[in-house]
């Protein structure tokens, strides 16, 4: 190859990639976290938001499921190179990878959910999970006949403790004597994928007299809800509305509107109003909440609903401040 053909080839390549970049510009991308696209939970919620964007705008987006931690940086870089923006990554596990890659693409917008990455082209969306968990805690305590309720986080991790702590606080606000058992499925991220063990942990709680169990275990949570339903007791879903999974045995679900966060980010980019920085979604912003629908209508008494509405109003107005576990790494109740 002579020098001139070589340079032509390079020039051609550059031109081609420029065209590709142009074509894909402003199309958003979504890269799911370990639990997978249809985890009936966190990732699926992001997918729902993206689908809503697609349906409403007629635009398109690209998405990808990773199969291992090693792919994180590579996946973000690939989408960024192809010109997608914003690139949304749901889940705290993405923080390190994004911290590394985002500065390499200053003209691309990134969104991370559940973690804060302080860079000029990154929007970090965090939720006040403790507020939504407080509400389902109230429901659990009012539903329980044994005076014992449970929470099953995937493993001992700050973010999951934030849910558990809010839940405990909510439960104790209506019944100070209630006993809340907390049992972890495993000791690391693999616990999110082990529904069999999650079911066993739940049975262990049920055996001890628990009659309402709140799952904070992503994909493994299906095992928690299954075990509760098998025993004729109540489970509480998380992130997405999971009431439909076992109608009559899922008391409610702690909604975390990842779909809203995803939809908003995509729309902002489309409208040219994308802003970096930290966005916090709580009850006041309708970013979290307890799910009420036809599947749990028979389980919720008017008093329970009234108690939740009352607490919601007080939290939104700031009259009740639910403790954030992340602030001091401790739970007061």
């Amino acid at each position, binding site marked *: 190859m002579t020098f001139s053909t070589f340079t032509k080839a390079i020039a051609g390549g550059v031109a081609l990639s420029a065209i590709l970049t142009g074509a894909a510009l402003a199309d958003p991308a979504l890269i799911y976290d370990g639990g997978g696209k249809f985890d009936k939970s966190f*990732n699926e919620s992001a997918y729902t938001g993206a689908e809503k964007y697609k349906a409403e705008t007629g635009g398109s987006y690209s998405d990808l499921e990773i199969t291992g931690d090693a792919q994180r940086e590579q996946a973000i870089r690939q989408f960024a190179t192809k010109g997608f923006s914003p690139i949304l990554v749901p889940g705290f596990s993405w923080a390190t990878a994004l911290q590394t890659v985002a500065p390499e693409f200053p003209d691309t917008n990134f969104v991370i959910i559940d973690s804060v990455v302080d860079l000029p082209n990154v929007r970090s969306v965090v939720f006040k999970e403790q507020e939504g968990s407080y509400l389902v805690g109230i429901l659990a305590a009012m539903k329980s006949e044994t005076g014992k309720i449970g929470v099953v986080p995937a493993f001992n991790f700050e973010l999951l403790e934030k849910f558990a702590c809010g839940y405990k606080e909510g439960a104790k606000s209506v019944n100070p004597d209630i006993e809340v058992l907390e049992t972890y499925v495993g000791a690391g991220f693999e616990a999110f994928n082990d529904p069999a*063990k999650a*079911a066993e942990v739940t049975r262990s709680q049920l055996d001890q*007299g628990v009659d309402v169990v709140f799952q904070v275990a992503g994909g493994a949570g299906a095992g928690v809800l*299954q075990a509760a339903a098998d025993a004729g007791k109540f489970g509480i879903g998380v992130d997405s509305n999971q009431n439909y999974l076992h109608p009559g045995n899922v008391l409610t679900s702690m909604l975390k509107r990842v779909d809203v966060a995803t939809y908003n980010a995509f729309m902002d980019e489309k409208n040219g109003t994308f802003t970096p920085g930290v966005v916090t979604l709580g009850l006041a912003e309708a970013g979290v909440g307890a799910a009420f629908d036809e599947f749990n209508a028979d389980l919720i008494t008017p008093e329970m609903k009234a108690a939740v509405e009352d607490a919601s109003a007080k939290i939104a107005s700031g009259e009740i401040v639910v403790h954030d576990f992340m602030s001091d790494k401790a739970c007061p109740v």
Partner: protein
Amino acid sequence: MGYYTDLILILDSTVRLAIPLILACLAGLYSERAGIVDIGLEGKLLGSAFGAAATAAVTGSAWMGLFAGVGVALGMSAIHGIASINLKGNQTISGVALNFLAAGLTTFLGQSWFHRGGFTPQLSGDQRFGPITLPFAPELANVPVIGGLYSELISGHNILAYVAFIAVPVTAWVLFSTRFGLRLRAVGENPKALDTAGISVTLLRYQALIITAVLVGIGGTYLSIAQSAGFNNNMSAGRGYIALAALIFAKWKPWPALATCLLFGFLDALQFRLQGVQFPYIGEVPVQAIQVLPYLLTIILLAGFIGRAVAPKASGIPYTKER
């Protein structure tokens, strides 16, 4: 609730946690005794869990699920057999390949068939193996001591769990009291001697692999349609590897294998129960300390009490008739 009831409930949980381990461990025992290392147990568990859940979801029958689960394991064993018996390939590599194949293929097929990101639909009713109440269990439930033991611990498991427990004495009998068992042990120790006696090493090793597949297939089926209600990505979660460790622990013997798997199950069940418990004098122990217990005890037992574990001599070595 009294300590006795607590103990029964923990043991009950132990049994449920140990079932897939027992089945996978016995499966590994047959193949390793015949001289074939089966790292692929993990993948077979996963593959058969998927096959069982997918078939049960489509046909609505748990039994069809079981057939499919065992079928998948047989297919995977056939690949392992061709690679390591006929082609004399490296057994560890073939096994690892099976693990990767299972992890990728289950997710891929699950996604293209059910469009739920690798999950199969939630199963219910006849699509799962439900608990079996043994005769007189409800009547005996209130009898002190024995009642709880019988109605909680012995009764109320599903059919696959009972199969796992029956498989242990059957394995012990086959291995140590039958001609087939003698040959199986011989082929793992000294295949040359067997070959000289006019017995086909290839045939014996395939027979062992078939038994392995049936057992691990039942184990995978238990995981997805008895213990859980559906398949999800990587749901075997390392149980195949733990079973292999248990096999070494048990020195390739069936009864010790049962004991080891029950021990692993018990430590897990105990660990769940001890989380967040207030101990007398000590108070609440940090959860990390509780969670490390099973691993810690395993190391202590392995280092201190088990002694040297010697694998079947010809294990992992493909048999070549002439050089």
